[in-house]
């Protein structure tokens, strides 16, 4: 099931290796040899069974991080994920560490997925998820949408800087999709990496916020804080496990565990919880991250990167307001573009590119120097994050029918407040009180190419 959840971009990076770490993992394992002393021979009596005492060698644990740093199989990462980032792990933490303050942050796409499948409103779906999680022992349930403000603002800033100072690094490619990032790191490396945005995804901004700000605000030591996110795709587990998101100060990962709608649903099933029977009580919202706000941005269901960068760049570069963004469909519905023109001159070109086939064309065009976009919102899943690989599966309707309703419910939630990060005093406040001069550390990240291992033995006719 997990394999089906990975985006195609991830799967293609190493399709050949359906192995688990125990079988064929190429990662060198070091076994510490025990110091040898003098040997001794013990003479037993005849009735002794011959028993050889062998020192127990500790079973080698391959971490997800090892997998990510290795150019070998990506599919083995899957079995590691199952043990390290799962609802079982969450339950274990809940049962073993009563003193831990567990915070769960829910992505709006995951919330829309529950709403669509169980025919409840977007608002109600969030509250029901909260009831369930709180019953499990989770202390706080938040919405990741507000964190996206910082991703968007930093993305815009980075884009404007490149546009003004270093156009050789255009088109800038959004990097909120870990499937895409992983594919670029493993397959295209330095040829494409310079184009990637260095801004953290909303999940990782959320992680940064919870571990560095929320904790201190609530006076909870970082090691007592456990942060779980609910994300629409499995690839987000890979993202959370990246070295860059291990906080040296708090000595913990910004996001400790990522679970997905399909896993949550399975857990409900196991515990005989019926989603529609869960309470959907509204609480008085505490802070901007509360589910009650149904905070949303304009634009695509993947976070509205394209729309926001386009409108704000037109404003800041050319001093004009774009009332709405009319993305035109190109080759297929997953490849759309919008342009800002003056006279017959195109001044700004932004595209939204979803799915592996369209990523291919973008990558090839960049390599050939024929890609004339300035910014591209890239997501590995066809239809973007609302169609994430770990969203709920339909019972009777077709996947497309369910997706259509997910999109519809998500759009509805946007209408109640398609917000702009630029005119939000709460955003300014957090920039002042939390981020201050630490934007680089809290809101940005790095990428590195993963060298390919080439072995003559891998040839298959």
């Amino acid at each position, binding site marked *: 099931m997990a394999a089906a959840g990975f985006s195609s971009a991830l799967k293609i990076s190493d399709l*050949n290796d359906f192995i688990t770490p125990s079988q064929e993992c190429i990662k060198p394992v070091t076994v510490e040899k025990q110091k040898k002393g003098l040997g001794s021979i013990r003479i037993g009596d005849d009735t002794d069974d011959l028993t050889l005492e062998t020192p127990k060698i500790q079973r080698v644990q391959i971490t997800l991080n090892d997998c990510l740093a290795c150019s070998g199989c990506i599919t083995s990462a899957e079995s590691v994920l199952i043990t390290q980032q799962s609802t079982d792990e969450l339950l274990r933490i809940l049962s073993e560490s009563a003193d831990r303050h567990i915070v769960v942050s829910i992505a709006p796409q995951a919330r829309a997925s529950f709403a669509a499948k169980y025919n409840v409103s977007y608002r109600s779906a969030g509250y029901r998820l909260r009831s369930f999680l709180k019953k499990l022992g989770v202390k706080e349930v938040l919405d990741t949408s507000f964190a996206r403000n910082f991703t968007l603002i930093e993305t815009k800033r980075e884009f404007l800087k490149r546009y003004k100072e270093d156009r050789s690094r255009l088109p800038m490619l959004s990097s909120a999709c870990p499937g895409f990032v992983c594919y670029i790191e493993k397959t295209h490396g330095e040829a494409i990496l310079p184009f990637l945005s260095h801004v953290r995804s909303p999940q990782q901004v959320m992680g940064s916020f919870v571990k560095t700000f929320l904790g201190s605000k609530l006076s909870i030591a970082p090691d007592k804080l456990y942060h779980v996110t609910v994300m629409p795709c499995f690839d987000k587990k890979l993202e959370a496990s990246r070295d860059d998101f291990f906080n040296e100060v708090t000595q913990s990962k910004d996001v400790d565990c990522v679970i997905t709608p399909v896993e949550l649903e399975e857990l409900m099933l196991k515990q005989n919880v019926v989603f529609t029977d869960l309470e959907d009580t509204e609480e008085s919202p505490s802070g901007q991250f509360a589910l009650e706000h149904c905070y949303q941005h304009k634009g695509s269901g993947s976070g509205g990167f394209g729309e926001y960068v386009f409108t704000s760049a037109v404003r800041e570069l050319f001093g004009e307001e774009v009332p709405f963004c009319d993305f035109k469909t190109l*080759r297929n*519905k997953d490849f759309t573009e919008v342009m800002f023109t003056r006279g017959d001159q195109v001044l700004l070109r932004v595209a939204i590119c979803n799915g592996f*086939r369209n990523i291919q064309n973008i990558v090839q065009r960049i390599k050939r120097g024929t890609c004339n976009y300035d910014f591209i919102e890239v997501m590995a899943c066809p239809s973007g994050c609302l169609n994430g690989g770990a969203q709920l599966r339909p019972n009777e309707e077709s996947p497309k029918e369910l997706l259509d309703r997910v999109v519809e419910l998500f759009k509805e939630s946007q209408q109640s407040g398609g917000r702009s990060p630029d005119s939000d005093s709460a955003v300014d406040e957090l920039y002042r009180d939390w981020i201050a001069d630490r934007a680089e550390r809290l809101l940005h990240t790095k990428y590195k190419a993963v060298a390919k291992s080439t072995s003559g033995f891998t040839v*298959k006719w």
Partner: protein
Amino acid sequence: MRVEQVASLEGHSDPVWCCAWSSDGNTLATCGTDKSIRLWTEQDHEWVCGTILSDGHSRTIRRVSWSPCGNMLASCSFDGTVCVWTKKDGEFECSVTLEGHENEVKSAEFSPSGRYLATCSRDKTVWIWEQGGTDDFECVSVQSCHTQDVKCVRWHPNEDILASASYDNSINFYKDEGDDWACDFTATGHDSTVWSIAFDREGDKLVSGSDDQTLRMWKRYHAGNQAGISPSWKCISTIQGYHTRPVYDVSWCHLTGLIASGCGDNKLRIFAPDPEQQVDCHTADAPNFIQAASLDAHRQDVNCVKWNPTRAGILASAGDDEVVKLWKVFDYEIPI
């Protein structure tokens, strides 16, 4: 039936993997482990190599395919790339290199309309590219329906339908469903790798050659067929008991209806409809094909067989013995 060797084309310095006739039947392109493509034409009753294209790939060239117009040639390689060679001023040059497959590309085929190019790879995927401008191909679809190495892709002769054969023993059929292509049928039956497939002239039947030492024939059932069978490709006959090693390639002649196979037992075989079977083999649900000829064609594996598309009875074969051979089949109306 009588088969004569009419030419032996020597020049490749390593095993030859593929030979392909241009649509006018006048030029034969060949390629192989020596990383070169050779173009052969007949001059004064002699087959000569007039062109060698050798700077496109860094590893074995697995297959070559002509565009229907004859002005383009696609080559695919174990280096993971596909080169499209375009004729300019009478010379072929590599006009575009298509990257994207993760590793060895096993097959590249232009669609009969010339609009599409299909490729497949050890990475288990099938890609469909669409020709944009002269030197531009865009990926329009990536299909991941096979669970293993994809060995061969072939287009339907008259419709934009693609078939692929795989190490997972199955054959998949794809068509354009509007926004994207989709696999709409998977044919299973072979007990091992399907190395090659070929459509008949009408595209109502497909023959497949497998590692299981058999050929299978598949019939297309259209939507709303009289037999009441759901739209599909069904196996209507198995040709077994002839091949003693894996069948690496099959070719179905659109002029004569004969089927040729290349086998790991160094033999080239020709199969013809059984004259004893008193049915029209074009409509029969279970046509009986029998072996009409078997030749020790090469000293090693026969990797590729191709019927000439315009000259009835002319057949090319390529082998691990570094040689390409041309054959002429006589008396093919009377198989035995």
